[in-house]
């Protein structure tokens, strides 16, 4: 009699809340944006899908100058939002590179990124001055990683 093939083991990705009493569990959450930065040019933007999400723009010194989002009113999602950063009405002057995430939770994710930035640097990016005083306080563990 042939041995019955074993069912493939599907990894359980649900967090183990029972172990959450160990504070180190907090650090396993991907919170910071750590994807590689790419050039912020029209050619790169045009190649992006027209989806909703969040982005971070970094200047030539490596300083984050803006954290923004492509929301539901953008005609072409991320493309429209990033093209605006290149246009005459852009809020930042030295935008050179960027990274992004596609997410339908763009409002909460952008607020989260701003709060983490504020916790890490004690201030907001220069292009986010209008958020001053509107954000909550987050104290993520330093090792709370990215994605």
């Amino acid at each position: 009699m042939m041995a019955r093939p074993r069912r493939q083991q599907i990894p359980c990705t649900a967090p183990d809340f029972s172990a959450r009493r160990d504070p180190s569990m907090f650090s396993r959450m991907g919170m910071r944006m750590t994807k590689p930065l790419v050039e912020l040019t029209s050619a790169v933007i045009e190649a992006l899908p027209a989806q909703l999400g969040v982005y971070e723009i970094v200047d030539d010194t490596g300083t984050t100058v803006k954290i923004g989002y492509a929301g539901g009113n953008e005609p072409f999602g991320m493309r429209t939002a990033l093209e605006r950063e290149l246009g005459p009405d852009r809020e930042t002057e030295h935008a050179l590179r960027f990274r992004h995430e596609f997410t339908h939770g763009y409002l909460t994710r952008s607020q989260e990124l701003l709060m983490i930035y504020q916790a890490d640097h004690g201030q907001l990016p220069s292009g986010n001055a209008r958020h001053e005083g509107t954000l909550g306080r987050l104290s993520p563990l330093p090792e709370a990683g990215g994605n």
Partner: protein
Amino acid sequence: MDLMLSDEQQLIVDTVRRYVQEEIVPLEADLDPDAGELHPDDQARLIEKTRQMGFYGLDIPKEFGGPGIDVTTRALMAIEMSQHRAGLYNPCYGTFGGAGLAQLYEATDEQKERYLFPTLRGEKKGCFALTEPSGGSDPARAIQTRGVQDGDEWILNGSKLYISGADKADFALVFARTSDDPGRNGVTAFIVDTDTPGFHVRRVVHTLRSTHYATEIQFDEMRVPASNILGELNRGFAIANDRLSRQRIPYAAGCLGAAIKAQEMAIDWAKNREAFGGLLAEKQAIQWMIVDNEIDIRHARYCILEAAQKADRGERFRTEAAMAKLVASEGSGRVVDRAIQIHGGVGVTKDLPLERWYRELRIRRIGEGPSEVQRLIMAREILGGSFK
């Protein structure tokens, strides 16, 4: 049960309906489809307007300066207040004011001076920290946050999950286990200033509700003065439970408001959209969905008003409130689902509020006690507690 509105109730309903249509809905046209807040200038202008209408601070008891609105009228208002895009979780963008944490009305005079009155004046914000990673539906047994007395202070260690507003709160109502009793008789409520050393908001918890996040908070050797215990030692669960029961009627009414608006949109669409040589409204498949919507809406309305009227008469309304919450949250979810189906492709776009309500109504079946807990509450009363 009387389903007719009094002249005064009808006037209030009409006033709130006009306010939503004339003041709130036009502003939403310029906001992100998932937005949860108005521009601060609009917010301030509208708060002034609701003050002039005499409706500001709806849920504040009369003895603390509130308008003293009965539960039935409050439910009728909640049905109207949620009939806009952000209405489910931020009815009229908070321009009718909040009541603060209801538990603080039971606080000592000194606690009221420090926390309740500043909250009612809009100077402080509080958050309610009950649910833990170990569970939320049965908080009395799930609470693992531990409080240990050290002289005039208590040292709290543990964590809380899905806590709204902890990152912006000035103080938190924290429930911790303070005795060896594993159930409801070992839980104490503490009022904790969020700048207390050891109070950490560790992360944002993202959900289907993309306009507003929850948080996970951690207490690390956090010292709280014994004078900050709310109510009696080891009797904190009664304080938590009281809130859980009271909130269910307006919570259910909010669900119903979104369903009513979705039904209006579905009927309007069906009467104007043509397919296969006729209006959608002429197709039996669409007619039946509209009728099923109406059944769910009327069922929820009946249950909400029954619970509210019992509460107003001073009768026990725990079962009715649980039934209203269950029927309204589940029924409204079905209504919005059918409204999306009737609309077709445009129903799932962000051009309409339906997709947002669809996501947010899914959460309503869990928030303020999931459907299964509501059934448990009803079963206990219908069958009696002795079968346990």
